[in-house]
């Protein structure tokens, strides 16, 4: 019963995320696009919950939906684009783009089947389950401690770089 409910939830979340991604890419109004991307991120967080990645789901909602997307929305309102809805949303070369995207999906769909190793059975009791927050934290701060610190350096460089790039040039 729980397995069936999980599968129904997965197919709902998958369908809703594909629909909101298509709407996000095709809407003419950029703010509407952003709101559909928000719906997409929330549904993807639900999928993370279903595959047992609770911490990733929380980070997805807090960082992606809460910080990055709000940043994009603020930026869109800062630029103030009143004429954006008048023009076509896609360039004249859109059939080529659609063909490239569909070709990618077809190739990825074909390639994923054969190479898949069989699922590893869940380990017997003893120790936290591999997807849980404590297991992720243990690996993140032991084996991946150096990449974790490097990620903070990357973020610092991005902050400084964004300020330098966006700074108004002063004549002096």
């Amino acid at each position, binding site marked *: 019963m729980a*397995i069936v409910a*999980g599968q129904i939830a997965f197919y709902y979340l998958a369908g809703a*995320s*594909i629909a909101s*991604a298509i709407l*996000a*890419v095709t809407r003419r109004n950029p703010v509407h696009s952003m709101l559909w991307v928000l719906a*997409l991120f929330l549904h*993807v967080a639900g*999928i*993370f919950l279903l*595959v*047992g*990645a609770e911490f*990733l789901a929380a*980070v*997805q909602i807090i*960082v*992606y939906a809460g910080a*990055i997307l709000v*940043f*994009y929305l603020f*930026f869109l309102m800062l*630029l103030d*684009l009143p*004429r954006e809805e008048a*023009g076509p*949303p*896609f*360039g004249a*070369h859109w059939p080529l*783009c*659609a063909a*490239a*995207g569909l070709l*990618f*999906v077809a190739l*990825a*769909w074909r390639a*994923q089947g054969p190479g*898949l190793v069989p*699922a*590893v*059975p*869940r380990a017997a009791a003893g120790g936290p389950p*591999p*997807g849980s927050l404590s297991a*992720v934290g243990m*690996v*993140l701060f032991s084996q*991946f401690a150096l990449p974790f610190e490097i990620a903070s350096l*990357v*973020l610092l*460089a*991005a902050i400084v770089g*964004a*300020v*330098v*790039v*966006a700074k108004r040039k002063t004549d002096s």
Partner: protein
Amino acid sequence: MVPVGACLGLSAVLFGIGLIGFLGRRNIILMLVSVEIMLNAVNVSLAAFSQHLQDPRGQIMALFVIAVAAAEAAVGLGLVLALSRNRPGVSVEDLTQLRW
């Protein structure tokens, strides 16, 4: 228990939609958002593999992807701001000069 193949199919479809948006949209901000959709699609497949192989390292890779996505958003939007100072509007079809 979600089958890993279904997750990978969903990931491929989301990545393709993001690819179409990145290549086709005229608005440069929505091109950046399409990149975020593609990064999110990759995160879905990383989380699915993490469950499939019972290994938390997939989730950690997805965390790093999220950190890089945040950095990319900051730098990309800074560049768009610098561009729009020189030339109003965010349509990539207007950006035909290397410098002005």
